[in-house]
């Protein structure tokens, strides 16, 4: 068992969210970015179908653009024009402009397949959006909740480096020991974190089942 000296940060838990919740995060993110007044910038993409998916294929979300605007859907009958593949952290970073898309591509955290022209157009439309999402989140969610969400999204961009740091803290150089690639190291740590999370849940259940000590209401 990997013993972590530093508690996992929010972005790790973001990745550990069940698939259906990750889809909801992505869906609400796209909805929040492309509000009705901003959908006019999507007109060059009218008629195009995008698929967002995670590398393991567990999460798939379609985005269709037409004259009326943007439509998010769980399924599509036709093949997408563009597939944007990355984990939720990379997709979040792409949508919010928290990390440069080319940087994500160089590090193999994001890949665009299909019609590259359309994909590039979408990437540059996102990059050209000039708005203060943080201020909007503050307005809609309240400053405290928005602050937490924002911190998670911002931290998401450094997730891989963070996981490597965790490995270093744990004193186990998994990569060097087993000759694993960085991606495999991350997978190994995620499995460990899942395991820790399950243990934590089991422990919590046990604690909840234990009879509570009777508290005396009498003054000493």
């Amino acid at each position, binding site marked *: 068992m990997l013993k972590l000296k530093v508690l996992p940060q929010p972005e790790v838990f973001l990745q550990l969210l069940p698939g259906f919740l990750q889809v909801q995060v992505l869906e609400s993110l796209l909805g929040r970015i492309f509000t009705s007044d901003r959908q006019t910038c999507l007109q060059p993409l009218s008629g195009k179908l995008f698929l967002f998916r995670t590398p393991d294929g567990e999460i798939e979300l379609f985005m269709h653009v037409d004259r009326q605007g943007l439509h998010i859907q769980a399924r599509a009958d036709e093949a997408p024009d563009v597939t944007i593949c990355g984990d939720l952290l990379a997709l979040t970073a792409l949508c919010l402009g928290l*990390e440069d898309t080319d940087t994500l591509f*160089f590090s193999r955290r994001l890949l665009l397949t299909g019609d590259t022209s359309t994909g590039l157009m979408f990437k540059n439309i996102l990059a050209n959006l000039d708005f203060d999402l943080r201020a909007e989140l503050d307005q809609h969610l309240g400053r405290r909740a928005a602050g937490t969400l924002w911190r998670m999204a911002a931290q998401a961009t450094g997730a891989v480096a963070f996981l490597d740091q965790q490995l270093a803290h744990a004193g186990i150089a998994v990569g060097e020991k087993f000759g694993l690639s960085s991606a495999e190291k991350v997978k190994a740590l995620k499995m460990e974190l899942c395991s820790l999370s399950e243990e934590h849940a089991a422990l919590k259940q046990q604690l909840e089942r234990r009879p509570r000590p009777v508290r005396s209401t009498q003054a000493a």
Partner: protein
Amino acid sequence: MSTTDYTKPELVCPAGNLPALKAAVDAGGDTVYLGFRNASNARNFEGLNFSCEEAEEGIRYAHSRNAQVFVAVNTSPGPRNAADWTSSVDMAAELGADAVIISDIALLAYAKEKHPNLRRHLSVQASAGNYEALEFYAREFGIRRAVLPRILTLDAIREICSKSSLEIEIFASGGLCVMAEGRCWLSSYVTGDSPNMHGVCSPAHAVRFEEENDRLDVKLDGMLINRFAPGEAAAYPTLCKGRFEAAGKQGHVMEAPYSLNVLEMLPEIFAAGVQGLKIEGRQRNKHYVRTVVSTWRAAVDACAGDPDGYAVQKEWMTSLAATSEGGAHTTGAYEDAWR
């Protein structure tokens, strides 16, 4: 080097859109360069660059914060479509840009005649790499600054700076080209488009990425030009950075995907009299621009404040490496022994 021996060069920063322009200015860029949304500039990618309105807002934003804006009109028109190029020069003048960056001699002549008060800079795309060529451009077209091609050693740059009355700008950071800027037709053999006339090395319509079992294949017009193993860092899909078989070996036969970084040479560059340090990357977003410009701002200020005590900080290198193509840096031709 004493503090009186150098000129503090200005940081000339990339902007492919308005958020990136604002990020460059806010991060301490002295100057931002941009292009309009057509083939008149060497970053003609889908959805990139500025409309007239966006450029107007960008110029207003930069000027209100004491930053300059240069407009790149640095490709060459074909026989029948010169209007896009001349109108781009006109638009730059009307919007109050501080300079136009041009490579084509007919366009330089047009700009000189129509807008004599608009500063003209010679683009790297003109590939003018010697004093005599620069003098020709200065005499005939009244250029005030030249962006040197990335084929010169620092000795050669020093010599040009000492002889020329022009301001000299060099590339300091970002992606590299093969050593034929403005004369590279490589991609046109595969795609029909070239950076010189269409503003793109690898037009997106010809690029396809295909992944199978974590192996990434990159194709240009159906031709396999690169293959990345699982987990291997990827690079731009340009022909010059493709991997091919030559003399029985597979590898980068033209250029490896390294990024230029001359942080360690800053005191010598200051002493040479270079007046502009150009950061490449108009295709990158505001996050990249903010990161890279703030890093270079810190380095240039540190070198200006204490050139003798200047030392490259580890965090500068880390932040540049994290965003660079190939994750590896080079000082390119600047340090090479060859000329």
